[in-house]
C-alpha cells in the first residue's frame, strides 16, 4: 500500500480529502461495535472523481472502503486500518423523478427518507424502508439489498433497481439498465452488484422504480399469549389472500422495555404482539381490515386494537418505533442480529433465540418482520467485560447455527459485513464460496474494494 503516492494523485486532481486523525477518526466506525482508523477520507463530488480515486487506489494498491451514512450494523464500513474511506455523502442529488415512466434517478448519497419525501409529494411510493431509512443512503441500501417492514408485500431494494452506473475497482465506469421494466439484454449485472456490499464496485448512480402511493393505510395491533397463535394468524392471513403492507412482531421483552419509556398500554404478560398494516384502495382496505380482525381473534388473539384514524394509527406505530431507544437505554452495548428463516419457522427461531440468550445470561429483546421470517434478536450487554463479550459471541454463534438448521440464512437485510464473515462457511459449500471469490477476483484482482468484508 502506497498511501502517499495515492494522495499525490488526489491532491493533484483537487479532490477533497482529509488525513488528520482528528478528522479521520470521525469515519472510523459505524453502528457495529467495531472500529478501524482510515489513513484518509475522500469526498468525491461526481462519478469522474470516484473513477480517479479508484484508478489511483488500484495503481498504488490502497484498500478502499465505500461509505454512506455509516449506519451498518454488520461493520460493513469498517475498512483496513490506514486505508481509504470513500465517503459518498456529497453525491446526494435526486437527479430526476419521471412521473410518466415512474422512475427516479439518484446519486448514491441520497438519504432513503429524503427520496421517500420527494416522491410522496408527487403521489408516488418507493417502498424499501429499512429501520435506518432516516439516515441511511440509497448507495448503502443497494449494497446490502436493504429491506424493511414493507418488503413482505412490496419486495426489497433489488426489486426497485432498474439500472445502475458503477465504478469498478480499477476506475472503469460501467452502466447498465435504464427506464424500462422489461429487460433481458445481456447478463443481469444488477443481481451481481446489488447486495455485494461494496466488494465488486461502487454505485455512483441508480435508476429506481417507483409505484403509485396506495390510497389508504390502516393498522391493527393484535396481542397474543402464545407465539404460535401469532404465527398461525400470519399464515391464516396469507392463506386468505391478504398481503398486509407490514407484519411487525414484538416479543414480551421488547414490549416491557417500550412500556418503560413510552407507555402505550402494551400488555406486559403477553408473549407477543403483531402490528398489521393493510394498504390499498379504501374500499378494499376496509374489507380486508375486518377479515384481519376476525382472523386475529379466531387464532387466539386476546386483544385486538384497530386504529380508527391516522392519529390512533400513529400512536400504535410510535411504540414500535421507540423500540430501539427503549433497548438502548437498557444496555451498555447492543448486538443486533438479523437472521431470516422460512415464515413457518419464525416461532421456532424466536424461541431458540430466547433459549440461547437465557443460557448465556444475556437479556434479549426480539423484533421481527413476521411476514417474511426475518428476526432481529437484540442482545443487551450490561457490563462490557471481556467475559461478557465472549459470552455474547458464543450466543451469536448459536443463533446463526439455529437459523441455518431451520433452513434460514445469516442475514436478511443488514449484510454480512465484518461481523458475520466467519459464518459464511457454515452456510455455503466450498464450491459456492470459491465461485463467489472467483467473481470477486475477476472484478477486483488487487483486492482494492472492501477486501476484509463478506468474503
Amino acid at each position, binding site marked *: 500500500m502506497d498511501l502517499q503516492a495515492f494522495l499525490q494523485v488526489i491532491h493533484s486532481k483537487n479532490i477533497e480529502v482529509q488525513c488528520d486523525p*482528528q478528522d479521520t477518526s*470521525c469515519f472510523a466506525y*459505524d453502528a457495529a461495535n467495531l472500529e478501524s482508523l482510515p489513513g484518509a477520507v475522500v469526498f468525491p463530488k461526481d462519478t469522474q472523481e470516484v473513477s480517479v480515486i479508484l484508478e489511483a487506489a488500484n495503481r498504488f494498491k490502497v484498500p478502499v472502503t465505500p461509505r454512506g451514512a*455509516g449506519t451498518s450494523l454488520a461493520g460493513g464500513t469498517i475498512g483496513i486500518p490506514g486505508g481509504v474511506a470513500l465517503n459518498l*455523502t456529497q453525491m446526494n442529488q435526486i437527479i430526476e423523478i419521471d412521473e410518466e415512466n415512474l422512475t427516479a434517478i439518484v446519486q448514491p448519497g441520497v438519504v432513503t427518507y429524503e427520496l421517500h419525501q420527494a416522491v410522496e409529494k408527487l403521489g408516488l411510493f418507493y417502498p424499501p424502508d429499512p429501520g435506518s431509512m432516516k439516515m441511511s443512503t440509497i448507495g448503502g441500501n443497494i449494497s446490502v439489498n436493504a429491506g424493511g417492514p414493507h418488503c413482505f408485500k412490496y419486495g426489497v431494494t433489488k426489486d426497485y433497481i432498474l439500472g445502475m452506473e458503477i465504478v469498478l475497482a480499477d476506475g472503469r465506469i460501467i452502466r447498465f439498465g435504464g427506464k424500462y421494466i422489461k429487460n433481458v439484454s445481456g447478463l443481469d449485472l444488477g443481481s451481481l452488484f446489488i447486495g455485494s456490499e461494496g466488494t465488486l464496485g461502487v454505485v455512483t448512480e441508480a435508476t429506481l422504480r417507483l409505484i403509485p402511493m396506495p390510497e389508504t393505510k390502516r393498522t391493527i395491533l393484535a396481542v397474543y399469549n402464545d407465539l404460535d397463535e401469532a404465527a398461525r394468524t400470519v399464515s391464516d392471513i396469507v392463506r386468505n389472500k391478504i398481503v398486509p403492507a407490514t407484519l411487525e412482531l414484538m416479543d414480551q421483552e421488547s414490549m416491557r422495555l417500550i412500556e418503560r419509556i413510552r407507555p402505550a398500554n402494551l400488555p406486559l404478560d403477553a408473549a407477543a404482539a403483531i402490528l398489521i398494516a393493510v394498504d390499498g384502495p379504501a374500499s378494499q382496505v376496509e374489507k380486508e381490515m375486518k377479515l384481519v380482525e376476525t382472523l386475529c381473534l379466531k387464532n387466539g388473539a386476546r386483544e385486538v386494537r384497530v386504529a380508527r384514524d391516522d392519529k390512533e394509527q400513529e400512536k400504535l406505530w410510535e411504540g414500535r418505533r421507540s423500540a430501539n431507544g427503549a433497548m438502548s437505554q437498557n444496555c451498555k452495548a447492543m448486538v443486533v442480529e438479523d437472521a431470516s428463516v422460512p415464515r413457518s419457522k419464525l416461532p421456532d427461531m424466536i424461541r431458540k433465540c430466547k433459549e440461547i440468550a437465557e443460557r448465556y445470561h444475556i437479556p434479549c429483546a426480539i423484533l421481527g418482520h413476521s411476514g417474511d421470517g426475518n428476526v432481529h434478536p437484540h442482545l443487551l450487554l450490561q457490563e462490557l467485560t471481556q467475559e461478557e463479550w465472549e459470552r455474547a459471541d458464543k450466543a451469536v454463534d448459536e443463533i446463526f447455527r439455529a437459523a441455518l438448521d431451520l433452513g434460514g440464512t445469516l442475514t436478511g437485510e443488514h449484510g454480512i459485513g465484518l461481523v458475520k464473515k466467519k459464518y459464511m462457511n457454515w452456510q455455503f459449500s466450498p464450491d459456492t464460496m470459491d465461485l463467489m471469490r472467483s467473481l470477486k477476483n475477476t472484478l477486483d484482482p488487487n483486492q482494492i474494494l472492501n477486501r476484509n468484508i463478506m468474503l
Partner: protein
Amino acid sequence: MNYAEEANRCRRCGMCHAVCPLYKAERREQFVARGKVRLTKISEEGRIELEDRAKTTLYNCLDCRACMEVCPAGVNVSRLVKGMRKKIYDKHGDNLLMNVALEHLTSYPKRMELARKFLKLYQTTGLSSLVQLVPSLKEKEKILPAIPKRSFRNELKARDVRPGKKGKVAYFISCTTDILYPQVGEAVLEVLEACGYEIYPMNDGTCCGVPQVGYGHVERAKEMALQNMRSVPDDIGYILNDCATCGSALKEYPELFEGTEHEELAQNFAKRVMDISEFLIKHTELPTGEKLGIQVTYHDPCHLNRAQNVKQEPRDIIAHSGSELIEMENSGQCCGGAGTFGITHFDLSQKLLKQKVGNIKATGAEAVVTGCPACRMQIAFGLKSYYKDIPVYHPVELIARSIREKGM
C-alpha cells in the same frame, strides 16, 4: 460529568444525522453529534489530542439540541461539546479578541453599557458605512439591529417599582434585552404588574455566562453564575427571564457546580428559574386586552423548545392576545443564529436562515413571534435580506400591546 462514560453510551446508530441542521447542510460526519461524541470518547481515552481540526469540529455546533431530542441512548451532546471546548481552552487559551470579550467585557454590565453607547455612536455617525466597505464585514455588520436610545437597565433606574398583591418575582435582565430590545423588558414589567406582581429586577446580576461556557471559559462563567445567584433574595419563588438562551443557561447552573460546594446553591437557584411565557400561562390570570387580530407565525427557539421544553405556552400567549397563529413548517429548526455562530460561521448560518425565512414566507404571516432575542436578531436580519421587513416580536410584547390598547 464523566465525559468518557457519557460518550460511550452512543450506539452510533446515526439518528442524529436525520435532524442535525448542520449535517444536512454539509453532509460530513464532523458536523453531526456522532462525530463529536467520537472525538470526545477518544480524547478522554487519551488516544488523541484535540488540536485545530478537532476545535473546528467542536465549534461546528449550534447547541440546538435537535440530536438530543432523538438520541435513543439520550447522550447529552451539549455537555460533551461544551466539555471538550473547555478542555481545548484550558490547554491552549484563547485569542486576544475573545479574551477581552469574554473575560473583560460581556461579563460587566457597565462596560456593556459603554459598548452600547459606542455602537450607537457608530451607527449614527456613519462609521458603519465605512466598515461596510470592508468586504468581509459588509454583510455581517447588518446583523446588528438599530441600537435603542436607552438601555433597559437605564430605563429601570428611571422607573418606580410598583408593589403587587401577588408577591414578588425576580426578573433576570438579559444582555440582549438590555442593550438591543429594551421594549421587551418594558413589556415584561407591564404585563407582570398588570398580573399583580411586584418585580425585583436583578440589577446586581450580570450576563448569564452562556458565551463564556460556549467558548470554554468556564471558570469565568462560574464567577458570573455566583454573582447572579447571589443577586436574588432566597424568599423570592420565581426567577423569570425573557431570553430562551439565558433561561436555559440559568437552569443549567447546577452542571457548572457539579460536585463543588456551590452545587446546592445552584440547584436551589435553578429550580426557581422560569421562562416568562411559561410563568404567565401557568401561574397568572392573564388579563385579556384588546384583540390584536394580527396573523403571526411562531419560531421555536432551540433553548426554549428543547432545552426548557416550553413549546405550548408561547402559543397560548399569542392566542390570548387575540392574534392568529399560522404554524410554519419546521418551526423548531434552528434559525442559525446560535449566539456568535451567525458571525463566526456566517455562510453556514445564512443557509439555515434562508430555510427559516422561506418557511416564514410560506405562512404569509404579517409578523414573526419568538421567545429569544438572539433568534429575533437573526430572523429580523433574515427577513430584511431574503424577504421583507416584517416585525419580529417577543410573545410578551403582544400581550403588553393588547393590554395597552384596551387602556388597562
